[in-house]
């Protein structure tokens, strides 16, 4: 079986599981979970340095130990201007064009502000960023983002951190069918089967944080997610059977003992 890689802009990855680095109980658990997930891409947030903290180890210490591609995000931004400003700071820190664009429109649901996301995406693409926008599972928004030059589109499966799984598989499928850039399901995955379902819909990858970091055993869940993403990808590529209302026997009907010439009991 060939190892089908994933290309986003100028970047190529082997793993289709993207992981966040927030909410881990401690850095050592984060390190082990990231390793167990087999991920290539990890997301980080940009925040003010706590000037009262005393040189504590940061997530970057962990990330430097592995060979990860850092995907900075604009999480916590509620306006296009703040997201653009955050993206520029991220690029200054690491000299990377990659940015996971998030412009949040509502505190309770953390659903995106799509017009503001489009506005920020336009500016960032023009400034040479490789933009991966988080947005609703809306096929029209996906097309707009793609038309603006985003390198991938990242529809949510369900609200961030909700663990509800893929709430609208049909919309995700429509987005996948029309997209000319990779589709990464971002947010909402709760457990391994959710990740597999997303991958079976034909998306190019899944990005998750809470599902792993918030599990009772994050390292084990990371391993489960790795297997689920691979299984879902393989199942998609293998081409599943059609759903049928009635049974079709798996064993030959002919030659069952005591049957008549038509195979009836």
């Amino acid at each position, binding site marked *: 079986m060939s190892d089908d890689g994933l290309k986003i802009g100028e970047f190529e990855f082997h793993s289709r599981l993207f992981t966040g680095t927030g909410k881990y109980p401690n850095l050592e658990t984060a390190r082990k979970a990231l390793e167990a997930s087999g991920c290539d891409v990890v997301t980080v947030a*940009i925040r003010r*340095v706590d000037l009262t903290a005393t040189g504590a180890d940061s997530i970057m210490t962990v990330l430097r130990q592995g060979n990860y591609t850092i995907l900075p995000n604009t999480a916590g931004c509620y306006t296009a201007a703040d997201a653009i400003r955050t993206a520029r700071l991220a690029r200054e820190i690491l000299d990377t064009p990659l940015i996971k664009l998030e412009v949040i429109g509502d505190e309770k649901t953390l659903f995106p502000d799509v017009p503001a996301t489009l506005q920020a995406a336009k500016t960032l693409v023009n400034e040479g960023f490789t933009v991966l926008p988080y947005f609703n599972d809306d096929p029209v928004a996906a097309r707009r983002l793609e038309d603006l030059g985003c390198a991938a589109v990242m529809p949510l499966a369900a609200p961030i951190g909700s663990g509800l799984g893929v709430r609208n598989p049909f919309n995700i499928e429509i987005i996948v069918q029309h997209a000319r850039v990779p589709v990464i399901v971002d947010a909402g995955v709760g457990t391994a089967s959710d990740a597999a379902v997303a991958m079976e819909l034909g998306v190019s990858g899944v990005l998750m944080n809470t599902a792993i970091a918030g599990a009772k055993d994050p390292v084990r869940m990371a391993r489960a997610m790795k297997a689920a993403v691979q299984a879902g990808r393989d199942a998609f590529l293998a081409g599943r059977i059609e759903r049928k209302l009635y049974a079709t026997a798996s064993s030959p009907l002919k030659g069952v003992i005591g049957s008549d010439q038509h195979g009836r009991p």
Partner: protein
Amino acid sequence: MRLVVNGEERQVGPSTTVKQLLVSLGLADTLVAVERNEEIVPRAQYEHAELHDGDRVEVVHFVGGG
């Protein structure tokens, strides 16, 4: 002179550079980005970029996030 660094007031000596500020904050070897009055100061300019009284400085870094 008086600066506002990450939202908090700080007193520093006259003509303090960005580099000197980062050293005094213990961040000389940390991966950070610096904004002065909402304009990014490129790393290559830290040594020569002088701060002025009343400047608002933001020093940011990467933290765990999703």
